[in-house]
Each structure stands twice: as C-alpha cells, then as structure tokens.
C-alpha cells in the first residue's frame, strides 16, 4: 500500500508540521502521520505566538524557510513588539492568534506542499534493523518503510490528564494518548523521564465584565513575523485585558490544595518553573498579594477566552469559585476547566547536534519529546530535525547552527549538552550573544544558510541581498554626510538634546540615545529624500547597527574569544576514559555526550573549568 518514503514524521503539532514541510520542501518524499487529521497545527495552550526570545525564534524559523512565521501572521488577531523601550536585542514580536484559523492555515500550507503525503493513525512501534531506523508500524499493523523517521509526539506518549483527584489517559483533553513507543525505545537502551505541564480554564467571554479590567491594545503600527510579503499586515486588531488575583482568590485556591494532584504527589513529572500553575505561585510567592492575569481572546469571532496566568489542575469547582473572585470574573462561566498533563520525554543528551539519536541511526526527536515547552521551541527543533533527516537521507553534510548564529543554535546546544530537568523554555539570557541574535537581523543571519541547503527560496535570498545593499548604503551615507547646523539644532532643540556648534556628521547625532532616524527625517529634508526608496525594515536594521555598533562590536570580540575553544576539535575517537586527570564525573559525562569541540565540552553540565583546562593541555600540547 505504501512505497518506501525518504522521511516519515510522526505527529503534526508545531514540531511535526515544520519537520514535514522542511523535508518535503528540500525534496524528500515525506509522509506525515498523525492520530487525527482534524487537529493538525493545534495551539494546545495559549492562542499566541512569539514573545520574549520566542518571537526571535519565529523570525529565525521564517528566515530559514520554515512556515511558523507566515502561519502566525495569517492567523494573527493582534501584533505587539514587546520591549520597544529596551535595547534592540530585547525587541520581541508577539501575536495573539485565532486558534482555529492557525490550525487551518497549517493544514492548508501542508496540503499545498509538494512531496508530502498524509496518513491518519497511531504509530505503535518503530522498525529498527541493526540500530538503523527502517520505518514505522501502525496500530492496525501496517508497516511503512522509510529511510529516516522524525518523532514529534508532544505530550501524547503515555499522557495522563489530571483535574483535582480525577485522572485519565490522554494527549490533550478529549484526545487519546499514544502508547507503546516509549516501551519499545526503552528496550533499545533509551532513557525516558516524566514531565508535566498545565493549561488554564477556558471562559465564556460574554460572562466577563471588561470594564473592570485594563485593556491592552495591539501596536498602532503592527509589524509581522515573516520577512516575505506573502503574509499580510493587520489592519484591525483585537485587544487583550489585564486583571489581577487577590487574597480571596488565593484563599479559595488553598481549600483545594489537599485534592491537588501536584501537592498530593500524584503527579511525578517535573513542571516548568518558569510557567508555574497558579497554585504553585500562591505557595512559592506567598508574600505576593496578587498575580497578573492576561485575558486573551481565542479568535476573531469566538467568545472563548484564555485566562493566561491561571494554569491549574485543582478540582474544577475550586477553579470556578476562585475565578469568580477576580475583578471582571464575578459572573464568569467556564467552557472547560484547566488541567495538568504528564507525559514521557527522552532526556535530549541522547541526541546529536542534528537531533538524530545517538543510539538509532536516522531516527530524530523534536519538540516536547525532548523535554522542551513552547510552540516556538518545538517548531524550531522540528525544522532542524526535518532538515537533517533530509540531509542524512541524501547523504549531504549536516546542518548545525552555532550559539552565535541563532537562538535555535542555543536551544539545541543547550538541550544536547546540558539536558534539562524541567520543561525547557527559551530566554534571551540563555544566549551569550544576545545583541547579535536580534529579531531584525534573523534574515541576514540565516536566510543565506537556509538558501544554501535548498530550503529558503530564491525570493528570500533576493530580499536579503537587497536589504544588505540598502543597509550598506545607509551606513555609508550616515558616516559621510553632514547636515546644516540650523537643521540639526532645530531637531536637537525639539528633543531637548544639547546643541552643536559646527557641521556634524549625521551618524554622530544618531548615536545619541534620544535621537532616531524617524526624528531626523522630520528636520533634515535631504535625509528624508534619501530614505524614500528604503523599506521600514531596511531602515530599522541599519539604524540598530549605527546606534549600537559599540555594543555589537564588544559582543563580537567576546564571540571571537570564546570561538577559540570551539575551534579546538576533539577527535571522534578521543578516549576520555584515558585522561586520568579528569574528575570521574567529567569522564562519565564526556564519554556519554562525546563533544566534538572543546567549546561544546565546556558547556556540558558537570564539566568544570579545570576539566577544560586539563583537556586543553591534553589536546593542545
């Protein structure tokens, strides 16, 4: 019934969809297997994409030729650039999305992708011959052969849902869990663990009193994720609302603690410290009188709202009574309660930098199966796994991003070297070179790489070349042109900046923190004329480079310094067991992870600087 595929992707969430699209677009004959074709591209948790660090990842996925950016733009109901008041490294795009449109756009995009087939069924086991993946076996006993398999099982592997004292198997509320795969993988020698995540109740928006909440609008001039023209810019937007919990909310929550699956120990999995449930917050931050709640609309037309900040697995009646004490929620009606879900994951230290498993050749893991949380983190891994599955099948060199290349590089490097004890979420602070990994330059950083491996389109590459040329032109103009004293002083006066005495190069003025290109254009007609031909994106990127060059240069210096360790390669056959001077913990870790460079070794948890010095001595002299 099936001929052999190049790549099979198991699971059609954010990771699976990106993996399937990437492999197919690069030319692999690809099959996407999902338990339910109606739930492709689900937003299982909040109806939003991006945010701090995550928005940068969506831009990176887009720059490489992935779909998440375009899908998010097409289904957006609100756009905000977070942290505009901070430095450019912190600017983070975020959209609120129409949950149903988002899934629909994913399905449409995948259906239009050539080389991609679909099959709806549960995969019950893998076909492995001599530690090489050969395909999958489905619940109905169908064998489908493939040269590579990408597993993106999300929260479905032995998923158990908890609400108060009730518990039942499932991968999401109303959907079956997947069984059998974990057990088979354990048999191959994989280690597995349990993780936990949660989601808040969904509420009937008609029952809320928004007058008691603070309205949060989208940006007046909304941007978007994708660097391509294909996705639209929003012309109308929906607002979110902000409200707060209070002492009486907390008191009611406390009455449910003895029935809480978290506190009673029924949940064994480790939850995300960074995205704690409301009961967790009440216990851990006892001194705080209130916690912030974001009320997020689920779409353009639906009345359903998502209560961000109120993730919980307390009994449904406790959830209901506590919610009613929140200003604006007095008469709230619940569509469904929040719940916690426990699922299997495989510690990602069992993976190579390509996300291929070390134990089984051509088997790749991506998404929550690796212990991460978040759509963006999942999408990024899916993309990289899909790319490398294709490259492996075609026997082409692997594609790996470094920590100074992309957040995606930071993400995967962290996962495979440090592993994770709790659901891993991206933060800007995880990146050493934050100022280099900005949302505005994701295309400059990554599109040439995506183009080279055959994923990013010609159109993308042309846009990048044009942007680069425009930026070079702008930089040159600013560093050579002067402006008349009276023009500049009118500007400086308006912005209460100190005046100048003589004709001054305009980049000098732009370096002042309170002066922007936009402001300068208003006062210097020649400058305004010069910028007519440039797009907003080109001007933004050039402005960042001009204004923050000192910081960018300093960060680059540090990259160069650190890269010297990256440049010291460790031979694949190097026997760490022979280096008696290493601590025994370091020896074990190094033998397990098998780092390919000294830089990578230095990031493995449990490897101390003195271990690195020892290796330096061994390798270097």
């Amino acid at each position, binding site marked *: 019934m099936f001929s052999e595929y190049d790549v099979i992707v198991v699971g059609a969430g954010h990771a699976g969809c990106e993996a399937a699209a990437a492999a197919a677009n690069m030319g692999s004959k690809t099959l996407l297997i999902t338990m339910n074709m109606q739930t492709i591209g689900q937003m299982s948790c909040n109806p939003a994409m991006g945010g701090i660090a995550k928005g940068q990842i969506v831009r990176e996925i887009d720059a490489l030729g992935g779909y998440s950016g375009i899908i998010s733009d097409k289904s957006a109901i609100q756009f905000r650039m*977070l*942290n505009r008041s901070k430095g450019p*490294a*912190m600017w983070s795009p975020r959209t609120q999305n129409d949950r149903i449109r988002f899934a629909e756009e994913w399905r449409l995009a995948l259906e239009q992708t050539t080389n991609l087939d679909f099959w709806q069924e549960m995969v019950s086991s893998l076909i492995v011959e001599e530690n090489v993946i050969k395909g999958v076996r489905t619940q109905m006993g169908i064998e489908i052969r493939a040269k590579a398999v990408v597993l993106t099982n999300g929260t479905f592997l032995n998923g158990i849902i908890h609400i108060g004292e009730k518990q039942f198997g499932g991968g999401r509320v109303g959907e079956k869990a997947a069984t059998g795969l974990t057990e088979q993988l354990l048999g191959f020698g994989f280690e597995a663990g349990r993780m936990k995540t949660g989601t808040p109740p969904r509420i009937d928006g008609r029952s809320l009193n928004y007058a008691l909440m603070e309205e949060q609008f989208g940006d007046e001039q909304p941007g978007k994720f994708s660097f391509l023209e294909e996705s639209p810019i929003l012309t109308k937007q929906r607002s979110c609302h902000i409200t707060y919990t209070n002492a009486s909310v907390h008191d009611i929550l406390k009455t449910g603690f003895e029935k809480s699956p978290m506190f009673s120990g029924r949940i064994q999995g480790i939850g995300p410290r960074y995205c704690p449930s409301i009961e967790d917050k009440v216990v851990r931050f006892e001194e705080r009188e209130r916690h912030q709640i974001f009320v997020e609309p689920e779409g353009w037309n639906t009345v359903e709202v998502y209560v961000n900040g109120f993730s919980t697995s307390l009994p449904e009646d406790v959830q209901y009574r506590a919610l009613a004490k929140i200003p604006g929620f007095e008469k709230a009606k619940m569509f469904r309660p929040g719940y916690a879900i426990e699922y299997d994951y495989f510690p990602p230290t069992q993976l190579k930098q390509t996300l291929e498993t070390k134990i089984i050749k051509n088997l790749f893991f991506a998404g929550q199966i690796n212990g991460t949380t978040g759509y963006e983190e999942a999408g990024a891994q899916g993309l990289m796994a899909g790319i490398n599955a294709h490259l492996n099948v075609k026997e082409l060199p692997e594609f790996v991003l470094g920590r100074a290349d992309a957040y995606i590089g930071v993400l995967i490097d962290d996962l495979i070297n440090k592993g994770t004890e709790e659901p891993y979420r991206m*933060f*800007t602070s995880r990146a050493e070179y934050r100022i280099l990994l900005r949302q505005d330059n994701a295309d400059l950083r990554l599109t040439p790489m995506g183009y080279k491996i055959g994923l990013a389109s010609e159109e993308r590459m042309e846009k990048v070349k044009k942007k680069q040329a425009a930026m070079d032109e702008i930089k040159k103009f600013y560093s050579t042109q002067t402006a008349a004293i009276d023009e500049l002083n009118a500007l400086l006066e308006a912005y209460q900046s100190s005046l100048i005495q003589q004709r001054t190069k305009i980049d000098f003025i732009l370096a002042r923190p309170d002066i922007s290109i936009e402001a300068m254009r208003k006062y210097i007609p020649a400058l305004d004329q010069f910028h007519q031909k440039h797009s907003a994106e080109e001007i933004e990127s050039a402005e960042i480079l001009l204004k923050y060059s000192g910081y960018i240069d300093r960060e680059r210096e540090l990259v160069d*310094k650190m890269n010297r360790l990256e440049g010291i390669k460790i031979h694949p056959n190097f026997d760490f067991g022979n280096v008696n*001077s290493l601590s025994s913990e370091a020896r074990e870790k190094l033998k397990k992870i098998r780092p390919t460079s000294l830089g990578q070794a230095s990031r493995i948890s449990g490897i101390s600087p003195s271990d690195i010095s020892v290796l*330096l*001595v061994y390798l270097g002299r």
Partner: protein
Amino acid sequence: MGNPNDTIAAIATPNGVGAIGIIRVSGPEALPLVNPLFPAKDLSKVPSHTLHFGPLKYQDVLLDEVLLSVFKAPHSYTGEHSVEISCHGSPYILQKVMECLIAQGIRPAEAGEFTMRAFLNGKLDLSQAEAVADLIVSETSAAHQAALHQMRGGFANKIRDLRTQLLNFTSLIELELDFAEEDVEFAHRPHLVALLEEIAGEVQQLIASFRLGNVIKSGVKIVLAGRPNAGKSTLLNALLNEERAIVSPIAGTTRDAIEDTLIMEGIRFRFIDTAGIRDAEDSLESIGIARTHEKLREAQIIVYLYDVNTLTEEELLSDMATMPQDKEIILVANKMDAINTATLPKREGHLYIAAKNGDNIELLKSTLIQRLHLNARPGDDTIITNIRHFHALQRIMEAIHNIKSGMHSGLSSDLLVIDIRRALHEMGEISGEISSDEILGNIFSKFCIGK
C-alpha cells in the same frame, strides 16, 4: 608537552657545585624504576613521606651515597608517585645519576612538566600554577611572599567571591528582562550601584598593588638626579658600600647612567646614577643629559641631590621645573658636614646628609622604604605581580566604568549586561572559572626544567 603517563626526572637544584643536589622523579612507575638503583630498600613497601639512606648503584657500580625521599600518590607535589634523590652536589654525579635513570626508562622532564602534572592532577589551580612560575624566579623575600600568597589561592579567591556576587546580581537583571511582560522587579538598582562600587574599590586596590607588586617582582627604580658634582656618585657608593661609580671632583665625570641593586627589607632597589642636570657645552656629556631625562621619566622615586653650600634658591626652583610632575621626589641636601649654619637656613622637608662620611645614609634608606609603602597596601594583603592579571583588572575597571555611565544615562539593562558580562569574563579568567588556551600558554611557558 610529552606523554603525561611517562615517568619523568630532572635535576631540581641549580647548576653548579653545591653541597647537595636533588633529582626529582615523578610518574606512575617512579618507585619500580628507581628501586633497582637503590637496592637497600623495597620502595613499594616503605610508607609515604619517609627518608631512606643507602648506596645508589648502577650495574653494581657505586654512584653515590644518597638520601631518598619517597612520596606516594596522591600525596606528592605532582599528585603522582615521586622520589627525590639527594646526592652530593657535583654536576658530574648529578649528570651520571640522570643518565642511569634514563637508562631505566625514565624520560627527562620538559620545562614546567612537574607543575603541569600537579595542575593536571588537581593539586594546583591555574593561578596557583602561575604563582609557582613566579616563585621560581623570585629573587627577594618580598617577591617570594607575594608569589606564595597567590599560590595559596588568596588572590583568586577574592576575585571569585566578587564575581559570584556580580553573577548573582546579573541573574536578577536577566530574569527581569525575560519576564518584562509580567510585573516583576528583582534587581534593586541601588544594590547594583553599591556592588559595582565595591568591586571597583577592590579592583582599584589590586591595580594599585600592582605597582608594589611590580616593585617586588622587578625591583624599584630609584634615579639619583642633581647638578654635576652634587655628590651623586659618592652617595651611590655610600648606599652600596662599594666603589662602583666613578668618583671625581671634576663636574660631569659620570657620563652614563649606572645601575646597581640593593635589597632592603626584602625589596630590591635599583639605583640609577645619572649624569648631572646641566646645559652641557660639551656634546659628549649632552648625550648623558638626554639619557638622564629619559631615566627620570622611568623612575619610581627620584632622589634629587644638591650641594647645600652652593645651590641657590633660583637654581633649586629651575631644577625642580625640569623634573617629571607625577613622580615621588626626595630632596637631599648633601655636604652637610661643611655647612655654614649661620648663612644657610635649614630647608623644610629636605633631608640633610654627608655622603662622603656616610652621615644620615641610614635615614635616607628608611625614607626610601617609607615612601615606597605610602601608596601601597601593607603586609599580608594580596598583591598583583602578574602583568596578565594587571591587564585583566584594567579591563574590568573599564567595563565597570561603562556600566556605571550607562546606568547614569538610563541605558536599557540588556545593554548594561553586555559590559557586565565582559567584567564577568575577565574576572573568570583571573579566578580560573573560565579557561582559555591563552592562559595555559602563558603559564607553562614560563617554567624552567625541574619544576
């Protein structure tokens, strides 16, 4: 560097004839490879840290009667099995013993190899290893103390402690940045300012101590300046107690800067005699005068000497005008034995001596020591003697300066963090919490063989 699993040996005492000479052997096979040469005992059975007297023989030929110190792993300098052979200190015997050890399959050590093994076996951290290198070349007791202090880890500990505090604070700022959407504030800015001040204070002191540290390591340069025939050469001889400079009554005899050293209170003073300050008519001497001005600029302390009986107030003022402004100057009035107290009032703050008789020379010496300590930290405190540390500390100061001015101008904290991270990086390289190939290269290249 050679295979770290070899057993190595080197002569550990300086070249030349001495009462005893020591050969150090270290490595996994140290005991079984040395034992055949020392039939008196079974070294595998003797306890660690014991001494054994007996003949050292090679193929039944007696080489010497020696004392063997046995250290068993991991309780030795290198952390490996070690034997130290104390024999009679003739170069011939030492060489002969080395040859026999090599014949046993022991490899001659490379420079720094013992210390590198100590480092590899976790006996020393990098800054301690660095201190060992300094210790070996230390010539005075103060240099010895400074290096010993660093070897015990005092310096690295201090930086490590400050770095940890800054790191903790940075984590709070980072947390704040990553949770900017939620109404949280973790990092209290006045605390950061206070912490920066504390670090700046410590780093500044360490930088200042480099002056003293450098003095301790390389000696302090003291330049004798003054008009021709003020008695500079005589004073130098008095200080050094030997006829070194050319002493003559003809003004301008000293044409070259003469250098000699004197160790006082453990500190090496390098005295530099100069040609006189004078507008020379004779061109040969004018070369000497150019050199004098160059020397003055390099001096740490200038001793300005004048003939108390002949120098006028105007001449004194004009000479002072030619001195570098930022230097410590000690004004010394010479020839006080011939002074006519009736006509010449005593100048306040000037030191009166008679170089020819040695009068008040001891007072001058103690003044020199006193002036040296004025800007330096006393006693047991940490002293920076290493130029690598000095440069790193300067870069830390620069980063802290950037952070402070950034905070002052309301810079966003993500940009502040760039400089904080730089400071952390530099501090980490000093304390050994960040390793880099540069440091290793620096340290192990400084060694001599036998350490």
